[in-house]
C-alpha cells in the first residue's frame, strides 16, 4: 500500500514535467546570444528581446491581437450576459436548441469551424479586415463566455432581488446594486477567459488575416515555418508572461478554480 501513492506521485511529477518542458525550453532558448537555436545556450543575452521589442512588425501584430481580443471579449461578454439573463429567468421556446448552437463552436472540429467562419466572412465580404476577424472571434469565444455567466446567474439567489424590492429598490436600482455586483466575478472571469482564448487563437485566424493584417499567433506560426530565429522564442516568452499576468489577475479577483467549476 505504501508503494501505490509513491508511484502515483512520481508519475504525476513526471507528467507535470512533460507538460511544462516545452514551455520552459522556449523560455530558455529565448536568451541565446547566437543567431540560431542551440542547447545548452552559450551564454545569456537579451538581444532577441531587444530585436522583437524594437520591431514594428511584431509590435503591430501584438497591438492588433490585443485590440481584436479586447473587442471580441467585451462584445461577447455583453451579448452573452444579455442572453443568459433571459434564459436563466424565463421560459424561452427552443432553449435547448439555442444552448446547443451556442456550444457548437466547441463541438465542431477546429478545421471545420475555421472553414465555416471563413465562408461566413467571405460571404459578408469582410475577409482580411479587422471586422471579419472580430465576427469570427465573437463566435469562437461564445461558448467560453456563455457557460460561466449562466452558472453565475444560476447561483445568484433571486430572493436577494426580491428583498431589495421590499426595501424600495426599483428594477434599475436592483440591477445596479444587487444583480451586477453579485455576478461581477462571473462576468470578469468570462471576459478574461475569452480574452485569452481570442488572443491565443490561431487556427481560425490563419484563414482570415489580410495582406498586412496579421495576429501575433499567426505571425509566430508563419515565422516558425519560415525561419529558426530565436526571436520567435523571445516573442513566445513575452506572450507567456502576458498570459501569466492575466492568470494572476484572474486568480486574484475571481479565483482560478472558477475555470474548472464552470466548464460546460
Amino acid at each position, binding site marked *: 500500500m505504501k508503494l501505490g501513492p509513491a508511484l502515483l506521485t512520481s508519475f504525476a511529477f513526471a507528467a507535470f514535467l512533460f507538460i511544462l518542458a516545452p514551455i520552459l525550453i522556449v523560455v530558455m532558448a529565448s536568451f541565446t546570444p547566437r543567431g540560431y537555436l542551440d542547447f545548452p545556450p552559450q551564454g545569456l543575452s537579451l538581444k532577441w528581446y531587444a530585436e522583437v521589442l524594437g520591431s514594428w512588425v511584431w509590435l503591430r501584430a501584438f497591438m492588433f491581437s490585443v485590440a481584436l481580443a479586447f473587442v471580441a471579449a467585451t462584445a461577447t461578454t455583453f451579448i452573452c450576459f*444579455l442572453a443568459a439573463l433571459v434564459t436563466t429567468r424565463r421560459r424561452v421556446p427552443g432553449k435547448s436548441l439555442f444552448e446547443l448552437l*451556442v456550444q457548437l463552436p466547441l463541438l465542431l472540429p477546429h478545421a471545420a469551424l475555421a472553414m465555416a467562419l471563413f465562408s461566413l466572412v467571405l460571404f459578408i465580404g469582410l475577409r482580411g479586415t479587422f471586422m471579419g476577424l472580430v465576427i469570427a472571434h465573437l463566435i469562437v469565444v461564445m461558448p467560453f463566455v456563455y457557460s460561466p455567466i449562466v452558472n453565475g446567474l444560476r447561483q445568484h439567489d433571486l430572493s436577494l432581488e426580491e428583498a431589495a424590492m421590499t426595501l424600495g429598490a426599483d428594477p434599475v436600482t436592483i440591477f445596479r446594486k444587487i444583480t451586477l455586483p453579485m455576478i461581477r466575478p462571473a462576468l470578469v472571469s468570462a471576459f478574461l477567459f475569452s480574452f485569452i482564448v481570442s488572443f491565443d487563437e490561431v487556427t481560425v485566424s490563419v484563414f482570415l488575416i489580410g495582406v498586412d493584417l496579421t495576429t501575433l499567433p499567426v505571425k509566430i506560426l508563419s515565422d516558425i515555418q519560415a525561419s529558426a530565429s530565436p526571436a520567435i522564442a523571445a516573442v513566445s516568452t513575452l506572450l507567456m508572461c502576458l498570459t501569466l499576468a492575466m492568470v494572476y489577475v484572474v486568480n486574484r479577483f475571481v479565483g482560478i478554480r472558477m475555470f474548472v467549476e464552470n466548464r460546460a
Partner: protein
Amino acid sequence: MKFGHATLLLLLPCVGLLIGMLTGVGSLVIQAFAGSQGPSIANFTEFTSRPEVVGVFWYTHEVALIVTLICVFFSYPLAVFMAMRPRLIYLILILLPLMVSIVVRTYGWVVLLGPRGLVNTLLIDVGLIDRPMRLMFNTGGVVVGLVHIFIPFAVLSILAVYVKIEKSLPEAAMSLGASPFKVFTKVILPLSLPGVATAATIVYLLTLGAIVTPLLLGGQQQTMLGTMIYNQMLVYYNFPAASASAILLTASAAIAVIPFQLIDRWATRKLPGGEQS
C-alpha cells in the same frame, strides 16, 4: 425581477451570432456541393477517388485514436493524484499551458525535437548518436505534440467527475470487504467512467480538427485532414475541395464519437438524470 415578453429581445444579439455561424456552415455546404453545372457531388467523389486523400482521412482517425488512448491512459492517474492532493499549484500547472497559445506550445516541441534541438544535441554530446535523429516530421512527433496539447483537457474532464464521487462510497465498499483493487474496479472506475468518456470525446474531436501541430511537427507524409484543408484552402485556393473535406471531417467526427457517447450513456444509465440525456 420580472421578465416579460419584451425581454426576449435581449436574446437578439446572441441569436444574430448564431445566425452568422449557421450562415457560414450553410455557405460551406453550398460550396461543397457546387459543380460547374449546378449542384453535384463531384467534390466528394473527387475526394474518395484519390487514394492518397483517402489515406489522409484514415491516417487522421488513426492518429486521433492513438492520441485519445494515450491522453486518457495518462490523464486518469494524474486526475486521481490531483483529486487526492487538491492544491492550487497543481491546478495552475494544468491550467497554465491551456492559456498559452498552441503555436507557442508546439514551437516548444520544435525546439526540443528539431535537428538542432535539445534532445539531438544531448544525444550527440553524450555520444549515443553522431548525426541528428529524425524526431519530428514523423507520426511520433505529431502524436507527442498533440498529446501534450490536449492532455490538460482530458485531466480536467476526468477530475471534474472524479472529485464529485462521494468519499464515503469507497469506504463503504471497503467495510463490505472489498480489496483496494476491487474498490477501484467496482466503485471508482464505474463512477468516473463518464469523465473518461467526456475526455475521450474532447480529445478525439480536438485531434481531428487540429491544424497547427500537424503542420509544424508533421512532414509531407504526415498530412492530416486539418493540414489538408489548410493546404487546399491557403496554398491551392481550392475552396470547393476544402469545403468538401471540412464536411467529411465533421461527419466522420460525429460518427467517431458515438462509441464514447454510448459508454457515457451506459455508465450513467442508473444515475439520476442518466437515461434521458
